[in-house]
């Protein structure tokens, strides 16, 4: 297949996109291809860069680096009004001085189409979104759901190659949202237009899309079908963000075997190094509950909590020091002793993102070293001298977080807190834009301001000879 053909098949292609706002990197060297006719969802927490990516495709933002192709043509520097895409905005952005008909007709009038043609197209677009007879209504008098329908009709009537939707249902109530979701799916099926849909709602992403692109910190974490992303999350972030899950640290002693919480279980994964540290995902519905005297199962546990969720019970069951979240249609009374069983296909193994924190810094005195904007004490076993460039390795367990920022050597913000079995893995972001991973017994809330202390016994400081190594 020639390059040109390949590009046409991919109706949108972004290559090596980086976007920096006021020194903050919102999107980091991101590449993505979107095939014609697909319903693609950009999913991630707020601030992950998904809306910025959509705005770069629409042309409202220029990427700091990288290129944008639409229908095979480079569009990086093409202004929005010359791009073959239309957008449905989060806050609808209807023209308040125009009525419903004129709002929908806006794009067609710009194209200077014949009046009769405009009338025909607008009428059928309004019919498509279920707003027949609303032509002369003032848009500000409409409900949120109706306004969103006008916004969708206004974009669709232009017959774009790609429809971009920026959290279009975010401002609607739950019932209206569900209704609009199924309408959008049926519109997509009927029209065959490519939809690129931005949302932070994982349920919405899983129910609506052909392909889900999970993003965090301006980087794609995983691309896949909703089923694949749910069943085989590629890392702990995806597993945690999509659906309920138990995320536990473990070790792979060999292929198809995994040790965690003091037991060795059979699994379906291979290709890891011997005794490699891994993260396990076990979905709550993949854990079976047996009677306490049963032969089946691997863990003895006690029911701590049980909540009825409409069609199933969600229970917290403690076993081997870990609180499993378990879903079952059969209720277990609180305090009941049970056996928990996990089948090999219920265990998903993921590579650990990082197993040690590494930073570069400089020795400032006999027993202090500076990095991440702070001066830390260390054990100078190797006779390092003042001014030496050094690499500092810090284990996840060597860091202590303090409530009061003043108690730590440096301050940082908590960006993520994942429960990993019998401890939390907390990710923090320092004022010098660096990440720390910390294993701790305490749960920290996102955006908490914390102080950071490091155990000097567990800090490895090595001299860096080669200047290039720093990079």
């Amino acid at each position, binding site marked *: 297949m020639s390059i040109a053909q390949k590009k046409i098949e991919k109706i949108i292609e972004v290559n090596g996109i980086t976007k920096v706002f006021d020194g903050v990197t919102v999107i980091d060297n991101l590449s993505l291809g979107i095939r014609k006719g697909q319903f693609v969802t950009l999913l991630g927490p707020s601030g992950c860069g998904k809306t910025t990516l959509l705005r770069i495709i629409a042309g409202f933002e220029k990427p700091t680096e990288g290129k944008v192709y639409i229908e095979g043509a480079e569009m990086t520097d093409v202004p929005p*009004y010359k791009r073959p895409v239309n957008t449905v905005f989060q806050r609808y952005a209807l023209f308040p001085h125009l009525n419903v008909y004129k709002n929908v007709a806006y794009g067609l009038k710009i194209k200077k189409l014949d009046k009769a043609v405009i009338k025909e197209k607008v009428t059928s677009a309004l019919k498509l979104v279920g707003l027949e007879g609303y032509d002369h209504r003032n848009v500000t008098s409409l409900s949120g759901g109706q306004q969103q329908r006008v916004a969708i009709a206004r974009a669709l009537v232009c017959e774009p190659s790609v429809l971009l939707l920026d959290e279009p249902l975010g*401002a609607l109530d739950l019932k209206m949202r569900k209704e609009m979701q199924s309408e959008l799916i049926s519109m997509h099926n009927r029209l065959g237009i490519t939809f690129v849909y931005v949302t932070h709602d994982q349920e919405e992403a899983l129910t609506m899309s052909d392909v889900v692109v999970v993003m965090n910190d301006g980087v794609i974490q995983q691309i896949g079908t909703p089923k694949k992303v749910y069943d085989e999350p590629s890392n702990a972030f995806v597993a945690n963000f999509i659906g309920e899950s138990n995320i536990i640290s473990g070790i792979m002693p060999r292929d198809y075997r995994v040790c965690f919480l003091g037991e060795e279980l059979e699994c379906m994964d291979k290709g890891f190094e011997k005794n490699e540290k891994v993260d396990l995902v076990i979905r709550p519905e993949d854990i079976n509950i047996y009677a306490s005297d049963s032969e089946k199962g691997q863990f003895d546990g006690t029911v701590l909590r049980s909540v009825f969720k409409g069609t199933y019970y969600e229970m917290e069951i403690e076993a081997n020091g870990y609180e499993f979240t378990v879903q079952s249609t059969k209720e277990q009374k609180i305090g009941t002793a049970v056996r928990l069983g996990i089948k090999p296909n219920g265990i998903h193994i993921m590579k650990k993102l990082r197993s040690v924190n590494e930073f570069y810094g400089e020795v400032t005195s006999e027993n202090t070293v500076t990095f991440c904007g702070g001066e830390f004490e260390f054990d100078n076993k190797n006779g390092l001298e003042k001014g030496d460039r050094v690499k500092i390795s810090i284990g996840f367990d060597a860091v202590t977080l303090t409530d009061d920022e003043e108690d730590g050597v440096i301050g940082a913000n908590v960006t993520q807190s994942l429960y990993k079995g019998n401890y939390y893995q907390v990710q923090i972001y320092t004022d010098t834009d660096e990440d720390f991973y910390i294993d701790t017994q305490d749960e920290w809330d996102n955006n908490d301001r914390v102080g950071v202390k490091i155990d000097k016994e567990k800090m490895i400081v090595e001299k860096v000879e080669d200047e290039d190594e720093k990079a």
Partner: protein
Amino acid sequence: MKKLKLRFHRGYLAFPYMAVSIVFVIVPLILILIYAFTDASGAFSLESFNKFSDKGTWITMARSLIIAFLTTVLCLILAYPTALALTKIKASRRTVLLMVFILPMWINSLLRIYAVKLFFGDIAGMERGFMLTLIGMVYDFFPFMLLPIYTILTDMDKGVLEASADLGASPLETFLKVRLPLSVPGIVSGVLMVFMPTVSSFAVYDILGKDGGNAAFMDGKLFGNIVYTYFEKGYYNSGSALALALLVLILLSTVISNLITRGKTVKTGGTVS
């Protein structure tokens, strides 16, 4: 027994202004009405309105209207692009630049007019008269046009402008079809704030104008000057009658502009239901 409680009501906050407006607005208005419809002895009379049988009064009024109209149009032509340019500048620098335009308002109006006289008259060599009066008026009232337009342009929902571009409209089309129509309330409010004081202004003419006699149509007293002269010389009845006519004129222009903006002061952007 019920305790007597003094409850604070937000309406009470309006009392100080109400007191001021009674003394300085309502009472003078009533006095003007009384004086306009009485003669020197205090008896009811329409004598004061005889001034309107004089052709000169009508000419003065026409002249005032023309100057006010020209001032308003010139202010609008200068202020709209300025306001538009200000919205395109980074917010941090915008405030500083806006200050440059607003700063003259901190200086006494008379001083500003004298500054115009000094600069255009004494330094640039322009003679007192219609042109200099117009320049003085525009300089004096420009900020009143700029501010409301600037406010409406900066407060405008950027999403609406992006939506227009998204639907294929070029920057010019977006301006003509979205930005301009949505800024009409700001324009109307600026027009009123410039037109109303200029039509009744008298100080600018006093310092920058010239009475060219009957031959020169545009060089002559303004309506405000006549009213001022009557009051200064103690002809309260005639002065009041003319002031009342001016008041009616301004009232009419307000009513007309309200008709223009009716239903246009809409919120931009969507609503959450």
